């Protein structure tokens, strides 16, 4: 029965993450990056601060959208909090590969690995990636996500 696949997709860790605010540290003064998923209307404003050593010192990703996009934003914050720009970009690329290509999640992705089964739901890939591609943009990465 299809409920199995759905149970994988909506595991408690995801449902709970979606319910939590996606924010960490101090983002005062950050210029937010705006991202939308135009086909369905998911929306977020990602605010990022790096400290003088280039580490993420604040990240807020308030998201209106589905469970997947909200969980993804909140898990993102947990995973990259306190990381350097380079570390955060690597994690982002690994997350994107996990969702897009189904590559196994490295340990560093932590709870965000719970989103791996989105790969089995191609219509929801965009929801899972919204926050992560916005972070890439905020970190000033070039090229297609």
């Amino acid at each position: 029965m299809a409920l199995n696949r759905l149970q994988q997709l909506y595991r408690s860790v995801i449902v709970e993450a979606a319910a939590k605010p996606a924010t960490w540290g101090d983002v005062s003064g950050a210029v937010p990056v705006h991202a939308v998923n135009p086909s369905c209307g998911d929306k977020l404003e990602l605010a990022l601060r790096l400290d003088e050593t280039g580490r993420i010192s604040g990240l807020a990703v308030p998201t209106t959208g589905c469970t997947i996009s909200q969980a993804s934003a909140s898990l993102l914050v947990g995973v990259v909090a306190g990381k350097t720009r380079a570390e955060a970009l690597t994690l982002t690329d690994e997350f994107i590969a996990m969702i897009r290509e189904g590559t196994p999640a490295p340990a560093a992705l932590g709870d965000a690995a719970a989103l791996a089964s989105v790969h089995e739901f191609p219509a929801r890939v965009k929801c899972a990636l919204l926050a992560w591609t916005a972070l890439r943009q905020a970190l000033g990465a070039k090229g297609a996500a």
Partner: protein
Amino acid sequence: MSEELTKQWRADFPLFTAQPDLVYMDQGATGQYPQPVIDAMMNFATTGNAPVHRGLYRLAYDATSAFEGVRQQVADFIGARTANEIVFTSGTTAAINLVAQSFGRLFVDQGSEVLVSVAEHHSNFLPWQRLCEQTGAKLVVAPITADGAIDEQWVLAHINVHTRIVALAQETNVSGARLQDARAIADRVHANGGYLLLDGAQGLAHQAVDVQALGCDFYAFSGHKIYGPSGIGCLYGRQELLTEMPPVTLGGGMIEEVSIRGASWLPAPERFEAGSQNVLGVIGLGAAIDYLQPRRAAITSYCSTLTRQLRQQLAAIPDVQLYSSQAACATLSFNLDGVHAHDLATFLDEQNIAVRAGHHCAQPLMHALAVPAVVRATLGAYTSVRDGQRLVAAVQQAREFFGGESHGA
């Protein structure tokens, strides 16, 4: 409710032979192809394909006759006075843009008002919003009633001598509510020197249309929402108005004469049909009208009854919020409290029920309803009673699934 009739209609749609278990409830986004439409297109492609309006040989003449025959068929189907009032376009969106860019630039200026509703599809909202920005005219946006219908009283009360264009959906795509008295609006706007455009993208599938009785000046629709092919649609325009309108797209097939110094245009409708036309699409559109016309009343009556029943059954599920009108004849828009529309759509998809979730190209309406997204199920000729039962059961199950504690580790 005649289960027999549905079975027969359903058999006309080969998609359900290929996917017998699929519950397709997205007819309002794009329709499925009945076999006769496919056959007509394939037959043309294999035995009659040739350029139209350009060839002096028999194959081209016959193709042109078939093409122009569909123009006459459309004119008859919607009650136009002559086939010259029918312009082929790539769809409703292109048709409305043509009116906004050509007619709109002639008749709207600073001090004018253009009246739309908050329930319009982006395709009948953005072209007017831009026209107003470009000309300095005011965009007047009518609200909806509690049942999701365009507030026609409000519209009537806000038409005045500045109102140059009123552009409204004959049937809105989220609530499925239909205009009750387009004629009264037409009369009021005409009395004030303005013009009425009806967006028939959703309406034409469900009701007999007579543009003269409706009193509208323009009527736009798409083939793919009336069981025809994608990439083709029509603009109906009153001949006197089409005659005054300049072309927007220039190219082959719409000129009288061209020289290095200048060009003169053919009369309507050719004036608006630059470039090689979607001949195969036009042929398919003709076959779709042949399919729909004799069945439309029965299909609408059948779907209306089923839609009403399903609406009641959905309303009986705790936490279900309904956004579609009580009078909708094929549209069920709803949400489940605490569950985002996308999550619900994915849940339904896992039960092989295809519904749409999102803003439905109606963001002004989403703002007015204060929801980011809704789920919409739309019915077609092929929708079975069992399809409806599966939808209701799956929504119930979704409520348990998302509400319960039964998630995996």
